[in-house]
């Protein structure tokens, strides 16, 4: 029902074209991995979807709801249009940042609780127009918070402050915070980059499990091929701001485009 559609989207920083115009359709409930070398524009693409960066052109749609683009005026002829730009807080997404962005003045539990509390207070004011979710009660929020924390094995550390945690533990706090509200679309920017091999494969399983159970759409940025091909239902390979190939993992592995993709996949 609500596919994420990026139409002719492009991004320039000054003179520099970071994303050249491309079109991408992310099917509802799919798990899309964005794969590419460092600096190819993966984070930028994610931030544009989240509403943190304004695209230089193009449109973003979530189902029938325009998140960014030019909306033509129906009344006054075709020539005029208004810019639609839904601010990040009204897009109803979840995101896990590459830099974790764990709030240092809140405990682990408070970090994970924050989005839940905000959503509850907003839902009771009915300010998110597209969701008719009932506000969660205090108990339900507590439960959701603990569920998310146990998912990332941090329940025992819930009263610690971030500076008392290791890098990998902070990363898991960020993951729990993104998962707790069970958003329809979850944006993950290299969420496992700082974990050891064992924990990483465990988390991979958990994320796939969550994806199946909660029926959410996931956009997953990584430069780790194994991660992408093991978890995703669709893979997009980016090269210098352009899509080099897209398809299901098996399609790409079977017939990688000659040139960049073949080369990129052969290095590991």
């Amino acid at each position: 029902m609500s596919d994420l559609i990026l139409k002719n989207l492009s991004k320039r920083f000054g003179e520099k074209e970071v994303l050249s115009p491309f079109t991408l359709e992310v099917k509802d409930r799919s798990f899309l991995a964005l794969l590419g070398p460092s600096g190819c524009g993966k984070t930028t693409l994610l931030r544009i979807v989240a509403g943190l960066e304004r695209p230089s052109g193009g449109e973003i749609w979530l189902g029938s709801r325009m998140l960014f683009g030019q909306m033509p005026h129906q009344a006054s002829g075709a020539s005029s249009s208004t810019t639609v730009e839904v601010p990040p807080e009204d897009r109803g997404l979840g995101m896990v940042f590459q830099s974790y962005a764990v709030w240092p003045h809140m405990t682990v539990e408070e970090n994970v609780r924050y989005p839940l509390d905000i959503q509850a207070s907003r839902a009771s004011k009915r300010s998110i127009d597209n969701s008719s979710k009932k506000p969660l009660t205090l108990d339900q929020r507590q439960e959701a918070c603990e569920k998310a924390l146990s998912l990332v094995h941090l329940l025992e550390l819930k009263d610690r402050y971030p500076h008392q945690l290791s890098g990998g533990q902070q990363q898991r706090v960020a993951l729990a915070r993104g998962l707790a509200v069970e958003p329809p679309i979850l944006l993950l920017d290299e969420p496992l980059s700082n974990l050891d091999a064992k924990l990483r494969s465990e988390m991979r399983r958990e994320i796939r499990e969550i994806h199946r159970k909660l029926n959410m759409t996931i956009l997953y940025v990584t430069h780790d091929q194994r991660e992408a091909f093991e978890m995703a239902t669709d893979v997009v390979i980016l090269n210098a701001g352009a899509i080099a190939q897209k398809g299901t993992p098996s399609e790409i592995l079977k017939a990688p485009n000659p040139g960049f993709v073949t080369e990129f996949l052969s290095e590991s």
Partner: protein
Amino acid sequence: MSVLLEATLRSVQISLITAMVSGLLGVVLAWLVSRTEFTSRKTVASLLSVPYALPPYLLGMAWVVLGNPTVGILRAFLPSNGAYGTLGICFVLSSVAFAFPYLELRAGFDRLDSSLEEAARISGASPVKVFRDISLPLLWPALVNGMCLAFLYALASFGVPAILGLPVRQFVLTTLIYSQLKLGGQAGLIEGFKISLLLLTIAACALGFSHYLTSLKNRLGASISGARSSRPSRIQLGRLAPLVMSVTWLWILLTLVLPWIALTLSALAPIAGSYSPSTFTLRNLSYVLNLADFHEALVNSAVLSVSVASLVVLLGFCLGFLSVRKKKPWASRLIRFFGIPFATPGTVLAFFIIFIFSTLARLGFNADYPLLLMAIAYTLKYAAVGANSLETAYTQIHPSLEEAARISGARTVKLLSTIWAPLLKQSMKAAWLLAFLPLATELTMSVLLTGPGSATLGTVLFQLQEYADQPSAAALAWMLLTLALVIGLMTRKKEIY
């Protein structure tokens, strides 16, 4: 009520109001220019740092011109007292002192990893909520420090309460010390000593209280910085953008442009209050330029400010090396010690110097060298500026740069002259300006220490103003304000993002 009690209450009241207003303005303005987008944002951002370089009493004089109850240009818009009295003093002080919290918070926002705020927005929090729940708690220490600086600044200010308070016989502690000393004699000295101790106590309490407030929430410390994303996503103000733009420009107009226009008109007017272009004259300007006192003051101020600024930078350069690179504990202790005279109100510092030297004089030492006393006072007051900024600069440069030269055989003097001096050139320049600008127009300490043959720009101006020669005072003030504005505009921080 006794004069002393009244002055104490007024001092505290003025300082509290100034700190509050400055804090509020600083927070709002810093947030607007650091985190939102509106037309002319970059220009606004860099203009807001200019008042920092202005001597506040020049603005006070401008507001006398604007807000004099009988002949002021804007008197129709002001209360019956005009710009005189507590409210006027608070306004003029705030128009400079807001720069302390503003600059502290700008630096804070620059250090703050903006993805912390972005994460909250994606969680659904509105910009106001993000500010309340994330930015403000994390920038709390910066805000408290900025407000504390504004409080101390207002508490220690002498020129503004003298110009806007004395004509309506409203004393604050600094102007009370001044008038006690003007009475002269042993009684004045003892009375001044008592008030100085009182002023010092209030300053120490304010510092202690701000330390307490920052320690409350300062468990984050280093974690604020770290991996920060390339640049913050700015909040689009939408329909509010024109409003925000007009209000910020109105503030700049009120605090920078209007005072300059007022002094220009007043400098050109033949008598105070006659501002029609047909009668404009250059007589005031040429009168001041030919004044013997002015020539003397120009030389004194130039020599004093250039030499003291150079001295404190040199001192900082050496002490920083000894403290950071040679790890000498006495050097770092001395640098910490300089913080005390820096935080001491200038009036009190000057008073103690007078007190010590007049005691020496009674013991038979001849201590009647006002210029020397001024040089001592200036150096004590501004030593911290050179020492702190250069100590920080030393810690920011990787020791391997020095070690590479040491391995090549360079000794201490060679190291300082060929490695550290070139590396620290920018920091030394900045520290020099930071000491030179306020010293060139110093008033608070000079007015107490001055004597025959030792006029400075500040004291000449103060005398002209006190003897109610307003057109000549305005002419001199106009020259100084123009110069300060030019320097301030030239050295203002450029905005990158």
